[in-house]
Structures are given as C-alpha cells and as structure tokens.
C-alpha cells in the first residue's frame, strides 16, 4: 500500500514537472527543414532560422532594426583604422561554448575561433574548405569576402584584426550576417581528429542562447536553454521548431494551440487568424522589393521615356490589393523605406494611363508587343507573380501595349532572365541581406551585375560611380547623401517599375510575450517568454 502511495505521488510529481516544462516550451511552426546546421555554406532563411539559436556573431543588429549595435554581439567593441583598411574587434572574455553529449569544451571563446570561422571559408588549403564534398561558401563569396579580406590577424587571445584590401563601408554589416557566425575551433579539431568532419553540419556547437538537442528531418528541431550563456538567458527552457510545410496547416495548428508562433501565413488565412481572440498579428515592414525589370539594352526599352510611360500605366494599388492582399506598400525607390538613405523626396510615378499612352506615342512607340516574365514560384516579395503579370497585362493593354506572359521552370527562369539579350520585362525581387543600401543598389543595379543579378541590364555610369563611392566612404551621412543621389538617377531613368515592399506578418498566440520581429525575416526567439 505504501509503495502504491509513493508511486502515485511520484507520478503526480512527474506530471506536474512535465506540465511545468510544457509551459516553459515555445513551439514555432516553421515552414521547412534547414539545409544543415553550419550557417557558412547555406543561403536560405529557413536554415538561418535554425542556426540563429545556436550561434552568435561578432556584430549584432539592434533588435528590430538594421542598425549595427556596439557590444551586442561577441565583440565588446571595435575600431576602424583611419584608412578604413583595418577592423580590430575586441572579444568579450569568458564566453562559453555549449557543452553537450557530443562535445565538452575545455576553453572559452578566443581569437582562434574567430579566425577559424572565416578562414575555413577562404583558405583552400584548409581541410575545412571542403569538409564535405560539394560544399561551397556562397554568402562569403557573394559578399566579395575572398577579394576583400587580405588577412586576419590574432593580436592577442581576445583581439582580432581584419586587414582589408580596400575600404568597404558595408563590412561591419557583413559581420552581422549568418555566414559570419562564430564556430568552435576546438570542436572542429576534435571532429577532424576523429575523421568525422561532416558532423560539424549535423550537430552544431556555438555560443548562442540555445543549445542543440535533436533534429528529426521534416518533423522537429529541439533546442534547450544554454545556462552558461554570456548574455541575458533565453526566456524559455526549450524551443521546438515544428516543421510544417503547408501554410494553411500551420495556421490550423496555431489556432489549435499546437504551436505558439507560426511563420509565413497565407495571405488568404490572415483574416481568419485576425478574428481569433487568442492570436495576435505582429507586422513589420519587410526589407525587400518586388519589381518589374525592363531589359534596358533592348529596344524600345533602351529608351527611358518608354520605360517611364510603362511605369505610369501600372496600377500599383490594384496589385497591392489583389497580390499582397493589403499586406504590402507601393515601392517608389529600389530600396525599402525602412532603410537608411531612403530618398523621401522622390514621389512615385502616378498611375495615369492617358499620360502613359501620350508619352509612348511621343517616343514613337505604337503597337508594342512585349513579354512579361512571371516567376513560377511564390516569394515573400511577390506572393503571386502570375496574378501580378495578368494585372500588368491588363494595365498595358489599356495603353495599347500587348503583353504575352511567359514563365519557365524556376532555375531556368533565373538563368534566362540574366541574359543580356533577353526580351521584355522580368518580374523578380530581392530580400535584403545586411541592411546596407549597397546590398540593393550595387547588387541589383550596379554595372558589375549586368548579366547577373542586374536583370534590367542597366549600366548607368553616373549611378554606378555614386554607389561605388558610397562603398568606400565610412561616414554614414556622406554615404546616405550619395545613395539619395543615386536614387534620383534611378527614378529619372526608370530601369525598373518598382512594384511593392511586402509587409511581414507573424501570427503569435496571446500567451507569447517579447517576440521582436526581425527586418531580415530571420526568426529569433531568445527574448520570448510563454505565460
């Protein structure tokens, strides 16, 4: 009898404990499986969502902004040399790496870890450069780091100096990106010695607020609060990513309380979620732009007057309503309004089919037939390209322009739209990487990007000179002035019809507190608590 009572009490206690643990658990319904757990080789936001809980970076953006905040990351402070060629970072002392059942660190973070984190992506003689076959460091390359970083010097155990080949103002913002996450050299050495380097991408070790617990592909990722974290401890004991590919199913699970936060709701489900008393909708202006890029090297789109006329014919309000379901704002400039240096003095091309038709006639263009390319996939900056193309088709028909809508398989679409002799105008867009205007203006409209990400094939020397100049100036006010001028040239030349900046929506249950939306569309949960 006594044994039974003890057993019952133990069971009741276990139930209470497990109930408590559930309350300390945050379940996030994510949209897909991560590609891996090493943030270096990957480029997808879904992957960075999964690596963010585990890793820190030298530099961190102020929560909810695109501004680099000093002392928020692993670097306590930094100095930039007067010539802009050396960035010296001072590391926080006593930062611990995660201790798990697959790795026990014997030391805290030091300069060796920082140097290893970057050199593995650039030093082709390092075994870590190709630690699993077919690996490539796409972000490191895309941010021009191999050309930019001349060397990385260990000044002392807690001081690292990056020597650059040229001044590069966006460098600091680059250090806040996920490819710049700081990994453990000691862990890497241990795996290398064991001949099991591929584990680096499967069982991660970092210094972040959560430590990795388990991953079941296409089902769950589990993290536990890291009690040795150097910063403010995470608000929940455990964090679970419940991978749910279908957006409508995610919404149903949120309503049913199976998850506390969900990613990327279907625009069509938002009204239903909004009507639920237990769900709040957090919104944030997205760091993105959806656009229609004319091929400025092909007639008649090589004429700025023709491009402007077409821009005047697009009814953006109708597109915002039909394609973005109200969760977007009309784009005026190629960068989003939340970004510093956004030129508020520029006003949008006002929808005016009559003027558009007259301007087209004045340019000597009649009976124009053109292709508009519609992406075959949904992206945050353009949830329904086919619908958008149909609306543009109707708008252009109103000014006597016949539009044929074309589309290709996504990989082919991306490849063909890059070609300099491509026809017509292409619907595409961009999500910002690091909050720096250079990441939009140079990447998407620079002369170097013609035949690549510059789908307008637009090389304007004056514009390009301003953007290049802004890259090497370290004073942000001076840079902003240069970017504002560049935006004026963009508006006068109209290589694109900028369509919209989508609004990011994050439905959370009302028992969730402290969630801060990230403008880079990365989902972070360290500050979140669950009541």
């Amino acid at each position: 009898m006594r044994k039974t009572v003890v057993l019952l009490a133990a069971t009741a206690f276990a139930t209470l404990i497990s109930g408590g643990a559930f309350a300390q658990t945050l379940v996030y319904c994510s949209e897909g499986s991560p590609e891996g757990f090493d943030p270096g080789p990957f480029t997808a936001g879904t992957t960075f969502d999964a690596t963010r809980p585990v890793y820190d970076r030298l530099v961190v953006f102020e929560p909810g902004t695109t501004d680099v905040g000093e002392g928020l990351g692993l670097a306590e402070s930094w100095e930039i040399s007067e010539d802009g060629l050396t960035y010296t970072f001072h590391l926080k002392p006593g930062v611990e790496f995660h201790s798990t059942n697959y790795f026990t660190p014997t030391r805290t973070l030091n300069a060796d870890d920082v140097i290893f984190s970057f050199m593995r992506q650039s030093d082709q003689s390092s075994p870590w450069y190709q630690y699993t076959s077919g690996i490539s460091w796409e972000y490191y390359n895309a941010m021009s780091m191999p050309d930019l970083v001349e060397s990385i010097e260990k000044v002392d155990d807690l001081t690292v100096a990056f020597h650059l080949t040229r001044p590069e103002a966006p460098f600091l913002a680059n250090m806040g990106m996920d490819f710049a996450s700081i990994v453990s050299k000691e862990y890497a050495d241990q795996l290398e010695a064991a001949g099991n380097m591929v584990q680096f991408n499967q069982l991660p070790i970092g210094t972040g607020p959560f430590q990795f617990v388990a991953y079941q592909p296409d089902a769950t990722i589990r993290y536990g609060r890291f009690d040795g974290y150097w910063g403010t401890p995470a608000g929940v004991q455990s964090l679970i990513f419940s991978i749910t590919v279908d957006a409508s199913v995610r919404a149903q699970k949120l309503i049913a309380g199976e998850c506390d936060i969900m990613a990327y709701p279907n625009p069509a489900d938002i009204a239903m979620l909004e009507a639920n008393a237990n769900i709040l909708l957090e919104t944030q202006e997205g760091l993105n732009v959806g656009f229609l890029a004319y091929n400025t090297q092909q007639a008649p789109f090589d004429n700025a007057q023709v491009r402007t006329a077409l821009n005047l014919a697009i009814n953006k309000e109708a597109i915002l309503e039909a394609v973005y379901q109200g969760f977007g704002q009309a784009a005026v400039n190629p960068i989003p309004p939340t970004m510093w240096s956004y030129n508020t003095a520029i006003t949008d091309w006002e929808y005016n089919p009559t003027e558009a038709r007259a301007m087209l006639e004045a340019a000597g263009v009649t009976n124009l037939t053109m292709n508009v390319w519609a992406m075959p996939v949904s992206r945050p900056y353009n949830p329904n390209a086919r619908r958008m193309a149909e609306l543009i088709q109707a708008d252009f028909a109103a000014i006597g322009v016949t539009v044929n809508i074309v589309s290709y398989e996504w990989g082919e679409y991306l490849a063909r739209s890059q070609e300099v002799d491509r026809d017509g105008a292409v619907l595409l867009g961009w999500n910002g990487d690091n909050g720096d205007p250079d990441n939009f203006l140079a990447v998407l409209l620079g002369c170097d990007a013609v035949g690549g990400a510059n789908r307008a094939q637009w090389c304007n020397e004056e514009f390009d000179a301003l953007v290049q100049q802004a890259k090497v100036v370290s004073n942000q006010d001076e840079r902003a002035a240069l970017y504002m001028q560049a935006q004026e040239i963009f508006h006068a030349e109209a290589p694109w019809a900028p369509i919209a900046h989508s609004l990011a929506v994050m439905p959370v249950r009302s028992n969730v507190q402290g969630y801060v939306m990230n403008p880079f569309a990365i989902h972070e949960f360290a500050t979140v608590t669950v009541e």
Partner: protein
Amino acid sequence: MLRFLVSRLALIVPTFFGITVVAFLFPRLLRGDPVLLLAGERGVTPERYEQLVHQFGFDRPLVIQYLDYVWGLLGGDFGTSIATKNPVLYDFFSLFPATLELSFFAIAFAIIIGIPAGIIAAVRRGSLFDQAAMGVALVGYSMPIFWWGLLLVVVFSGMLGWTPIDGRINVRYFFDSVTGFMTIDALISGQRGAFSDAVRHLILPTIVLGTIPLAVIARQTRSAMLEVLGEDYVRTARAKGLPPRRVIGIHALRNALIPVVTTIGLQTGLLMGGAILTEHVFSWPGIGKWLLDSISSRDYPVVQGSLIIIALIVMLVNLLVDVLYGLINPGIRHRG
C-alpha cells in the same frame, strides 16, 4: 533452394545496373540547373558558375560521371546532397524509419482486413456482403491517394477533430529514437499518452496508404478462394464430413494463399510510390518529401541515390516473395 536463390540473385545484378543508368540519367533529363537554383535571385558570375560546375564534377563527360558514380556505389558511397551537404545515405536513414513504419502499418492493415474480407466474400459468393465488399474494393482501388487523403483530413481532422492533422507525434513528446518506429519508441519511453498519440497520428495515413493494397488483396483472396473451393480435394474434404471452418481455413486457404502472397509482395513494393503521396498529404516526415524536394532543386545525388535505394528495396521485397512462394509451393523451388 540454393539454385533457386542463386538464379534470382543473378537476375538482380543486371537489373541493378539498369536502374543505375535510369537513375543517373533521369535527373539530368529534367530541365533546370542545380547550380543556378543554388544561386537563386542573386545569380552567379560566369566564372563562379564554372567553378561550381567543376566542383560538383558536372563538367566531366557524362560517361565518366556515371562510371565514377557506379564505382562509388559499389563502395557504398551514394554521394553527397547538394542541398544539405550530408551524405545521401545519412539523410536517407534519418527519414526512412518513418516511411518504413507507415508502410508496415499500411500493409498490415491491408492484410488483416483484406484477407478475411476476401475469404468471406468467396465463401458467401453473391451475397450482399460479397457485392458490398467487392464494390468498396473497386472504389478503393480506383481512388486517387491524394484526393482520398485530403478527404479524410478534411472530415476527421478538420471537421470532427478526431485525428491530428500532420506529423508522427505531438512535438511536445520527446524521447530517444531506439527503433525508429515511433509507436515502439513511445512505448519504450514510458511517457504517459505518447503511445496513444503516436497511434492517433498513424490512423489516417495508414488507412490512406493501405486502401489500394487492401482492395487488391481482398479481390485476389476472393478469386483465389473461389478457384480453390471448386477443386476436387476440397469437395472430398467436405464429403468426408470435415467441419467447414477446417476445410476453408486449412485445406482451401493454404493453397489460395500462394497468389495472395505474390500480390502482397508486389503491393509492398508499390507502397513506396503511394507513400510519397501519402507523406505529402500528412506531412509525414519520411523519404517522400525528401525525394520530391530533391527533384525540385535538381539535387542530382539525392535523386539518383534515393531512386536506387528504393529500387533495391523493391527488388529485395520481390526476392523475399519469391522465396516465400517457393516455401509455400515446393513445386516452384524444384523448378527453379
């Protein structure tokens, strides 16, 4: 028996090589370039493109790529996923237990219901049960899996709320994976409610994936039983006054089972195709979604590897059926 096995195994070798050719060529015949898909909106410069193509080995002659691949296969290397950077086998074995569990329950469901239904329908030939069972079997066989799955989800998960919408178990349960079968691991864990939750998650996917095999098995059992029930030895057994249960259950069923076992074997092999669709509907974390994703992203090593592994599994199941067939009917193995 040994000769029988050797002859079957000898057939597997050329089949395997044939499959490697098909699996190797299939993703390459699809439009779309994995390197460009990897680059996304950013695009790649021609130089970087060349670098990546070289790194992945896509710039070598196709024959060399193929021979290199087959050489790797013979050494157990199925390549590395372009997307996840993990060995293909690592990703496969992370996901396969879920597919295996679902397939096991689906075929068990089909057998447990299909064989008795077929027997009863044959014994009561022309009865209301026979007509209803065979009618339902025909509908089940003709039902598109995707539509059938969605219908059940809408009714039982959406409208009635009786079954979970997706997944293998509520994410709040957590225990070590010992066998890879969620139901068994849940039992081993001893966590209250975990086993029943895992079973609840299995109900609809099992029914959906098991429907077609159930229909086929029931119809096959019925027709095999009808044929056997008309044989002289069954009549003799009846004439001797053996109880009907014994006549049907021992004398008739044993012989009727021979074609049924073949059918079960073939259906088990075909389950892989159905599993891909079923997993998609129920977000079941098996190899189905993995394979579909790899096709979308033109992840050549994964497409090749998964097709070959699935083909190997089907071949092994067929071999097993051949062996079982031989065991049930000794005449087969003597001829083999």
